[in-house]
C-alpha cells in the first residue's frame, strides 16, 4: 500500500504582547542593563518579578534592584541545542538565584562543558550586544571565572510597553490515506470522492470518516469536473498575498454526484453575473503544471447550461 502523502509544514508568527506596569518596568530595566525584581507579600524578592503574589494573590508594587551575579541552584546539560535557544553550542539550562533575590531565574549558562558546571557555582549576567527591553537582553549567564567582557555604560531607556517574540515551528504534515488518493488522482486530472457505506453520501475531498455516521468511508467514486454554485461571495477587499485582481468570486461548488460542496473560484464572467444555481465547469491548468493539489483546477467558469433548480442543492447549503 502506498504511504499517505506528507510534506514539511513550517509555521512562523511574531507574537506581540503588551506588558503592563510590572513586566514593562522589568523589561525597561533590562534595556538599561539592570535587573529589577519585585517584593512579595512575605518579603521575598521575586526575580523575574511576579505581578501578583503566588501565595496570597496580592498585587505586588515594590520593585527591588538586584545584583548581576548569582548562584546556580540546579542545572541540566544540553549537548545539542535546539533552534531558538540562547546558545548554538552546548550549554546548561540553570535556575540562577541572583544576589538579593529569593527566587530563581531560568536561563542558559555558557560553561563549555558539563564538567565546568556544578550546583552552587557562581555566575554573572552576560548582556546582549544590543538591548531592546526583552528577556533575551540577557544573552546568557557565564561562570565568574570567565574573562569579563567590556560592558557598555548603563544608559536610561525609553519605557518599554510591548514585547515581540518570533515563534517558528516545524512539522511534518500528513494527509489522510483518503486525501492522499484524492490528491494523487488530481495529478492525473481526475476528481475522486468517497461514499459513506451507511448514509450513501459522497464526500469530496474524501474525509476518512463520515461526519454524519462516524464510520470509515470506503467506496471510491469518480466525479465529473462540473457542478453547481450553491453559494458565493464577491471579494472586493485587497489583502496581503492576494493573487487575483478584485472583484472576484469565491464560490461553493457542488460537483454533480457529490453531497458536499468545496470552495473554488468562479472566473470567466462578470462577478455580478454569478448566482446561486449557476452551472460551472473546471478550467484546468496546463497538464505540465499539475501536482497533487486542487490548484490543478485554475478556476471554474460558467457552462451556459440553464441554472440548476434550487431544490437540487437546497440541502447542501
Amino acid at each position: 500500500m502506498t504511504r499517505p502523502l506528507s510534506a514539511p509544514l513550517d509555521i512562523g508568527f511574531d507574537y506581540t504582547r503588551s506588558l503592563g506596569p510590572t513586566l514593562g518596568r522589568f523589561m525597561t530595566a533590562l534595556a538599561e542593563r539592570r535587573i529589577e525584581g519585585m517584593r512579595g507579600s512575605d518579603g521575598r524578592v521575586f526575580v523575574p518579578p511576579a505581578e501578583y503574589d503566588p501565595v496570597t494573590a496580592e498585587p505586588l508594587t515594590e520593585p527591588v534592584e538586584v545584583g548581576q551575579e548569582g548562584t546556580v541552584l540546579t542545572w541540566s546539560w544540553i549537548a545539542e541545542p535546539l533552534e531558538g535557544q540562547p546558545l548554538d553550542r552546548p550549554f546548561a539550562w540553570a535556575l540562577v538565584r541572583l544576589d538579593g533575590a529569593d527566587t530563581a531565574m531560568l536561563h542558559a549558562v555558557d560553561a563549555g562543558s558539563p564538567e565546568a558546571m556544578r550546583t552552587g557555582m557562581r555566575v554573572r549576567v552576560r548582556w546582549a550586544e544590543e538591548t531592546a527591553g526583552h528577556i533575551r537582553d540577557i544573552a546568557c549567564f557565564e561562570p565568574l571565572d570567565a574573562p569579563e567582557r567590556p560592558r557598555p555604560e548603563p544608559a536610561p531607556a525609553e519605557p518599554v510597553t510591548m514585547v515581540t517574540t518570533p515563534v517558528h515551528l516545524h512539522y511534518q504534515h500528513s494527509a489522510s490515506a483518503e486525501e492522499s488518493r484524492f490528491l494523487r488522482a488530481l495529478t492525473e486530472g481526475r476528481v475522486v470522492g468517497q461514499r459513506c457505506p451507511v448514509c450513501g453520501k459522497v464526500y469530496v475531498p474524501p474525509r476518512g470518516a463520515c461526519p454524519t455516521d462516524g464510520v470509515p468511508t470506503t467506496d471510491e467514486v469518480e466525479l465529473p469536473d462540473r457542478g453547481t454554485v450553491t453559494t458565493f461571495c464577491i471579494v472586493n477587499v485587497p489583502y496581503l498575498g492576494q493573487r487575483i485582481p478584485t472583484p472576484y468570486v469565491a464560490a461553493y461548488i457542488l460537483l454533480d454526484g457529490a453531497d458536499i460542496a468545496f470552495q473554488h473560484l468562479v472566473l470567466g464572467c462578470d462577478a455580478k453575473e454569478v448566482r446561486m444555481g449557476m452551472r460551472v465547469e473546471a478550467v484546468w491548468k496546463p497538464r505540465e503544471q499539475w501536482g497533487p493539489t486542487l490548484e490543478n483546477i485554475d478556476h471554474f467558469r460558467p457552462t451556459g447550461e440553464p441554472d440548476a433548480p434550487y431544490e437540487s442543492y437546497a440541502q447542501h447549503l
Partner: protein
Amino acid sequence: MTDVAVVGFAQAPHVRETEGTTNGVEMLVPVFQELFARTGLSKRDIGFWCSGSSDYLAGRAFSFVSAVDAIGAYPPINESHVEADAAWALYEAWVKIQTGEVDTALVYGFGKSSAGQLRRVLALQLDPYLVAPLWPDSVGIAGMQARLGLDSGLWTERDMAEVVARSRAAAVDNPHAQLAGQVEVDDLLTEPYFVDPLRKHDCAPITDGAAAIILAAGEKAREIAARPAWITGFAHRVDTPHIGARDLTTSPSTVAAAKAAGIDGVEVAELHAPFSHQEILLRQALGLGDAVRVNPSGGPLAGNPMFAGGLIRIGEAAGAVMGGAAGRVLAHATSGPALQQNLVCVMEGRE
C-alpha cells in the same frame, strides 16, 4: 453529589509515529468502535462529548473540530473541548453530569506527538514573556528538577533506573505499550546521558496515540457495566507559573488535589510521570507505601501520547477496578513544566 462511574475505556496502540493526520480521526474511529462494542452503547446514548488535544501539537488551527468527524456528529451533539490533557476533559464531563443535564458522557484525547519536535513545541506552554522566548525544552526543564532531587538525596540515579526497569517489565502485559521488556538496572546506568542528569530511558518516549472513556451516572452505570469504577474523589490544582519560585522537589498541587480527593486505602496508583524521577517524587508527595502497586500498566515511560496520557492513567486505574484486580485506585494526570498542574481521581468498586 451524583454518583458517577467509569464504565468503559479503550485506547489506540502507543506508537512512535503513525501515518495518520494530526486531527486524530484515524486513531479515534477504531477506539470509539471498540468502546461502543464493549459497553453495548451507541453514539446516540451519549449525552455529552468532551475532548482534550492541542493545536500546537498538531501544527494547525482547530484540529479538534476536524476530530469531531470521528464521532459522526449528526443529529447535532452536545460537545466541548479543553486545550489540555483529556483527564481535564473528563473533569469537565464529570461536572456536566453533576449538573444533572446529562447522565452519560464520552471523553477522548488524542495526540500525534511525532508531527513536530515535541521538546520544542512544549516550550510554548511556558510563561510567554519571561521564559518561552528562551525555548527551554521539556527535557531540559525536567533535567533541572531531577538534579535538585539527586543533590538533596531524595533519589539516586539508580532509583530512577529502577523505575524504568519496573515500568518496562510491567508493560510486557500491556498490549498497547510502546516500550516493554526485561532490562537490567546496571545496564541502564551504563547508558550515556541524554540531557545530563537524564538518560533517554528516563524520559517518556515520543508517542502517537488516543484514548476514550465513557462515564455514566447512578443506575445507568450499573446497567452498562457489571462492576463500574465509581469516582469517590476528583480534584485538580495548579502551582505558580514562576518556575524559579516553586519547590521543584515536591508537588504542592498534587498534594492539595490528593487531599481534596481523599486517597486513603488505594491499592493501585497510575501516576502520570513522564520522567522517571517524577514517579519517585509523586510517590513521596502522595505518601504511597510499598503496598501500593504503582503503574502496573507500565505507565508513561512505556508510552505517553500527549493529551491522552493522563486520561489513559484514569482508564488503566478504572480497568483494575472493573476487572476485579483492585477495590480502590488512584489515577493522576499532569500538565505543564515539571509537574506544575496536577489532577487526582480516586475510584472504587462496590459490591
